[in-house]
């Protein structure tokens, strides 16, 4: 038995409300990021002359919040996490500060990455979040290495490795799962399956039975779960994390969800059927959890208060980010390398 101490002590309703709060914070953060990015993102190939506060590619996980919230509820602060280019949710759910994150998206000095990474490289090592990554599947090798290090150092941490459905068609997926299995490493692989590889449906690009079947082919126990149902994700992740902590080796979670927005925020995703999107919106993870909370007797007022609290937190983050200074140009030369520092030409 294990899972988060919270789950062990809180009532089902309070625990679900806590998961809901994480999702609401992610939703509010990404809504605010999207709003402040308007005009600031280049539409594939087109440049913009803009004063928008959030610049560059912004990959939103809107509609996928249950995966981040449900998995991270079962991680300790000392556990590690690797993420994808769509990593705001994982980072917030792992415990990063929303203000430092928003500062990073704004390219400000107080950002998690000192303004050097932006949305696509958001990271907070202090909470074990080892980085979003601009390269699909690149976090997998880093995750198994962190887990290998955990084993060598005799630490009790586990590693959660998030990647998308597109990543299962890259070589590091095969290499990394095989590595985790042969070295018996404490990794929870989480395939956050939003059905799209950039602007192409993943299904048509993927042979065989998909992510979980490929994991089983390498000998990893694999569970498939409704990735929009935070209760189900939490329960599955709790079981898999407990197995890993008990020495059961790497485990695999295939969470089926849906990318409500386009690949990047300016992608209208006109390549897909509106009916598909509408039915996905019916299964919105916040709506689902809200209905379940009501059934458990949680009042609409309490749920609304959680929503309002999340929005207020993000408003505070936005205000702080607006007020924060830009990094000085000297920062451009900091943290490149120690050997040969000062030799830029």
């Amino acid at each position, binding site marked *: 038995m294990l899972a988060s101490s919270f789950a062990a002590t809180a009532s089902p309703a309070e625990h679900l409300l806590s998961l809901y709060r994480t999702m609401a914070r992610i939703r509010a953060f990404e809504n605010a990021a999207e709003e402040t990015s308007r005009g600031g993102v280049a539409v594939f190939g087109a440049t913009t002359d803009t004063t928008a506060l959030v610049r560059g590619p912004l990959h939103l996980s809107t509609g996928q919040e249950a995966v981040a919230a449900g998995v991270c509820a079962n991680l300790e602060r000392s556990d590690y996490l690797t993420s994808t280019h769509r990593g705001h949710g994982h980072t917030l759910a792992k415990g990063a500060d929303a203000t430092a994150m928003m500062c990073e998206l704004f390219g400000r000095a107080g950002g998690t990455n000192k303004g050097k990474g932006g949305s696509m490289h958001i990271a907070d090592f202090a909470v074990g979040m080892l980085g979003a990554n601009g*390269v699909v599947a690149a976090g997998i090798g880093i995750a198994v290495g962190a887990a290998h290090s955990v084993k060598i150092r005799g630490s009790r941490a586990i590693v959660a490795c998030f990647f998308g459905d597109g990543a299962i068609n890259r070589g590091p997926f095969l290499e990394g799962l095989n590595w985790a299995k042969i070295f018996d490493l404490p990794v929870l692989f989480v395939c956050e399956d939003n059905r799209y590889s950039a602007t192409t449906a993943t299904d048509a690009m993927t042979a065989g039975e998909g992510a979980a079947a490929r994991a089983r082919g390498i000998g990893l126990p694999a569970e498939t779960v409704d990735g929009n149902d935070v209760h189900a994700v939490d329960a599955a992740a709790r079981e898999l994390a407990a197995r890993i902590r008990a020495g059961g080796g790497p485990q695999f979670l295939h969470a089926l969800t849906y990318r409500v927005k386009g690949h990047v925020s300016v992608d209208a995703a006109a390549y897909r059927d509106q009916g598909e999107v509408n039915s996905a919106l019916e299964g919105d993870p916040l709506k689902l959890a809200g209905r379940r909370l009501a059934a458990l007797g949680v009042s609409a007022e309490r749920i609304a208060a959680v929503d309002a609290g999340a929005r207020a937190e993000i408003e505070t983050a936005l205000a702080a980010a607006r007020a924060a200074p830009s990094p000085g140009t000297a920062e451009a030369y900091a943290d490149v390398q120690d050997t040969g520092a000062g030799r830029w030409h």
Partner: protein
Amino acid sequence: MALMNYAQAACMALAESMRADPRVVALGEDVGRGGIFGQYRGLQQEFGAARVIDTPISEATIVGAAVGMALTGLRPVVEMRVVDFALCAIDEIVNQAAKNRYMFGGQGRVPLVARLPIGIWSASAAQHSQSLEAWFAHIPGLVVLAPATPADNYALLAAAIQCGDPVIYMEHKELWSLEGEVPPQYTAALGKARLARAGTDVTLVTWSKLVRAALAAAEQAAEQGVSVEVIDLRSIWPWDRDMVLAAAGRTGRLLVAHEAVQAAGFGAEIAATVAEELGIPVRRVGAPRIPVGYARALEDVSRVSAQMLLQELVRFASSDGRSRSIA
């Protein structure tokens, strides 16, 4: 003084580093058996399979995992067998290891050493014979080293493991059996070249296996009355501008030679720097821009020999340096 070969010197440096620092681990294909060149001989017996880790043929994950290890408290030494195979891990080297510290705002460090042996390995043809040091010198965040002697393979590997930056460590595939003295407590600073021979007419800068050819050519040039200074660069990035500029300023002529393809090779960077800073004549010698062929006659076309260096040195020393004769 201890006499040992180039592979044994590296092995000694790694063993001493592992004894001194429990964070140091080694991983790669066949390292448990001692490595295909014997450069890990005896290490798994001494330190165990958990620290000298035999891996699958998964280059991308060997380096990717080393990044994850380095970020979480270890100091991995990664074996790629030959630089040519490291191209299967180019994302992990260039986008992950080199950029992690900067991109994440200094939150992490990636103290890993990736051993990527370079050079023509006789009769091994196009995919086992490249010298790609310029590729990695081009990437901010990386340190690039290329030892030419057993002593430097000992000292530079030890320094690389301690330095805290990601290091591309480029041994030469035809130097493993080269014997030489390794003085006790010998150390080498990263970024510092080694004056291999003093001279007054031409400064010849080179590295790795060509240092021996350069010294042989200098010896023969001396018999023809040309005094050649030979600098073993050792460290490709950062490279020792101070020593090179001072030496070239004294002799008034710079020749850079490397086994890599001459076009866009690292010699171009050195030659351009010296020309910009000193305005003196510069020359380059490198391989033609062709893949290395299998047959001896083809392979030899790609090799830079002592004879070629001698010819260039004598011609260069006797010219006014401003232009080559058209004839």
